């Protein structure tokens, strides 16, 4: 999947990294160690549940964040970025986590245009890493 979307990346460097291949973890984007840690801490059941929740809930969470931003609700936008940051850290969605931190800062500084760029970046990044997480669920050993 091409990652040449520099015009819609967040305020920090555009993540124009080449995809390592469908199903492969990408350095800087996904962290297999986080998934292994979830499995160690709560078994494959917890791992699967967390991945399913992440895949199922993230689009709605991003939509809520965007709605908050468009309503100029900086408190709610910042809160939504903080919560998503926490979840993405758990799942090892590294680039998303970094973007969420940027989103929190944009909310703090009331930088709405930059906040929209962050959300655009989060949307793209989620679509980028989604196949990898879906692949983890398809793994019969998971």
């Amino acid at each position, binding site marked *: 999947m091409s990652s040449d979307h520099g015009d819609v990346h967040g305020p920090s460097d555009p993540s124009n990294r080449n995809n390592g291949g469908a199903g492969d973890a990408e350095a800087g984007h996904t962290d297999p160690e*986080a998934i292994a*840690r*979830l499995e160690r*801490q*709560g*078994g494959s059941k*917890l791992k699967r*549940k*967390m991945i399913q*929740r*992440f895949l199922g809930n993230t689009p709605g969470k991003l939509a809520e964040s965007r709605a908050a931003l468009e309503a100029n609700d900086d408190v709610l936008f910042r*809160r939504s970025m*903080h*919560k998503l*940051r*926490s*979840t993405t*850290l*758990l799942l090892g969605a590294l680039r998303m986590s970094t973007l969420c931190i940027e989103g929190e800062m944009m909310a703090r500084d009331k930088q709405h245009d930059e906040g929209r760029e962050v959300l655009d970046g989060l949307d793209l990044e989620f679509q980028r890493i989604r196949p990898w997480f879906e692949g983890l669920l398809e793994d019969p050993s998971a």
Partner: protein
Amino acid sequence: MSRHTIAVVEDNEDNRLLLRALLDDTYDIQEYGSGPGALEGLASFVPALILLDISLPGMDGVEVLGIIREDPRLKALPVIALTAHAMIGDRERLLEAGFDEYVPKPIVDETILLSAIERLIAGSQAKPDSSGA
């Protein structure tokens, strides 16, 4: 032998899921998604220990702790701070605020959390004026 109850105050459901998975083999868990909700629950039930997220919406963890420490029933209750902020000085700041321990998120080494819980509950149970489940 009865199990101790731990109150988990954390607004992120994914974090609560993880904490429950880490703890429910050994402890009973009472979950709260907000500071006011936790304070309301603590009015009728005192756990053996509280895991308290710092970055709660509205009333943050430090404010919740302040209210807890003002309550004679709860002031000796062990409270562990959970926070994604891991800057230098954060631990000292939180301990000065009245937390008994501090565990950074994400929880990379769960043995740190588990041993802190065990140590703090044992310590509070040993005190003559301890309050706990």
